[in-house]
């Protein structure tokens, strides 16, 4: 989509690159927040203390990304919404995260695999932002890519350990992979919002990340001795605001206290 954004070069941080700019940033923010929420459910319940700490740490990094992105989206939108307005006072259909990140945790292996698939995608997206015309977003990407690379490595090591561990762990991981993989196609689906992000120079090169992500993840899955599922025609629709049945429960839990006290400050 072509936009008149070129006229706003000098104040590009706060002037949207077209009508879809804030919407695209919100997709990223929602993805980080919802995955953080799922990972934080593991607090105190991990298989070893080190992983309790690691999951909490990754959840915290993702939450930090979400907060920066929400603040940026609020500035772009210019309607006075802050991070909490986005997180606590939007309804389910207004959340634009990919369905993948909202799915229930399942066992530790499924949680690892899902988070790994998403952070591997994040690494590539942050990379494209280095050339973004939105310099504030480029800065968020530069900060986040360091975190996501570490998450990808840590979680990828677990994918390999569990895939190539015991018979039982292999079986569990293959089951999780078969379940989760159809949801990943949504990450690369080029709808109007994604196309606009490319066309306006917000996230140039977004169309090329599918290939790199597939090559990267296939290499790890190969090391994990797992079989990459064949593509299916299924396309998840979380980024369109049409979510899985799990999303309502996730938001009910996350938003309940804040919504029980309208106007309260915490």
């Amino acid at each position, binding site marked *: 989509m072509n936009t008149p954004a070129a006229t706003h070069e000098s104040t590009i941080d706060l002037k949207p690159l077209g009508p879809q700019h804030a919407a695209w940033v919100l997709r990223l923010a929602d993805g980080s927040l919802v995955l953080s929420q799922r990972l*934080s459910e593991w*607090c105190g319940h991990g*298989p070893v*203390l080190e992983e*309790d700490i690691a999951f909490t740490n990754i959840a915290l990094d993702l939450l930090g990304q979400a907060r920066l992105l929400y603040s940026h989206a609020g500035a772009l939108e210019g309607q006075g919404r802050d*991070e909490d307005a986005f997180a606590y006072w939007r309804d389910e259909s207004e959340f634009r995260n990919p369905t993948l990140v909202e799915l229930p945790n399942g066992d530790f292996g499924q949680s690892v695999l899902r988070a790994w698939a998403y952070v591997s995608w994040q690494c590539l997206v942050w990379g494209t932002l280095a050339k973004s015309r939105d310099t504030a977003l480029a800065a968020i990407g530069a900060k986040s890519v360091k975190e996501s690379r570490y998450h990808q490595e840590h979680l990828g090591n677990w994918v390999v350990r569990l895939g190539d561990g*015991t018979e039982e*762990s292999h079986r569990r991981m293959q089951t999780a992979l078969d379940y989760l993989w159809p949801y990943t196609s949504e990450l690369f689906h080029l709808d109007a919002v994604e196309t606009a992000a490319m066309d306006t120079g917000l996230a140039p090169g977004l169309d090329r990340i599918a290939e790199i992500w597939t090559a990267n993840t296939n290499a790890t899955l190969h090391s994990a001795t797992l079989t990459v599922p064949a593509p299916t025609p299924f396309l998840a629709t979380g980024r369109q605001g049409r979510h899985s049945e799990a999303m309502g429960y996730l938001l009910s839990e996350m938003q309940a206290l804040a919504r029980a*006290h309208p106007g309260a400050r*915490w």
Partner: protein
Amino acid sequence: MYTQAMDIPEGNKAPLQSIEQGTASADFDARCAQGDFIEAKDWMPEQYRKTLVRQISQHAHSEIVGMLPEGNWVTRAPSLKRKAILLAKIQDEGGHGLYLYAAAETLGTSRDEMIEALHSGRAKYSSIFNYPTPTWADIGVIGWLVDGAAIMNQVPLCRCSYGPYARAMIRICREESFHQRQGFDLLHAMMQGTEAQRAMVQEAVNRWWWPVLMMFGPEDKDSQHSEQSAKWGIKRLSNDELRQKFVDAIVEQARVLGVTLPDPDLKWNAEHGHHDFGAINWQEFWNVVNGHGPLNKERLAARVQAWDDGAWVREAALAHANKQATRSVAA
């Protein structure tokens, strides 16, 4: 640190000693008296070793079990800022658990053995975590009062005789002080808020006040281990001294916060230069210590379930590591 279990009788008796052991023991006692650090490879009385493993592992278990009542609210924190603070705090607690287990391992007991002792009910953790966190204000009160009481207990341990423990405590105390301030800040924000928020804080303070005073353990007259532990320099102030210091410090903080401490007998005693406070219900304390608190069974069951559910993960990690080792030998 949670001194209560150190003061709970377990029937430990000092074993008979040989002449050589007697000399080493006198030497050891002299070093403790001088305030020297005992290190992992130094000779130490078996009873000292056992007492320290019990104390440090109990502290480690408390950090890990303590993640549960806080984890109970991390998915429902009412703002993203508070969610981030809570996540960071829980991560710190896990880290404290890690280095305390490591400190205890220097005494020759493995982490797996300590965890097995926890899961079988032989090892204790702080009873305070057997109380529930039904409201968000509980998260603030845990920071302000529970961590505040823990700091009172822990600061003297930074100078305790066992080096690895003392060094771990220095770092832990720094982080706990930060947690206490964050807890106070959380409550302060709520006290500046709506009537419902203020009521939530007061209700939480009412529930936690007495159990927190119990965290310092039985009164000195009923304490089993204090004398020996003081001689060894692994406990430097008595339960009652620490409790009194805590009450004196908290009264002023409660005033700033605008909450009432639920004790009609709490008042300044000019003659003693301290606050007097009401009688503690020690029956409740012993009930909770002996497994009859509000959540004893649930907390332990949650830990055991996490461990059991994670068995396949740990087995897989080990199997993969073994395969890798075999492959590198073959290559």
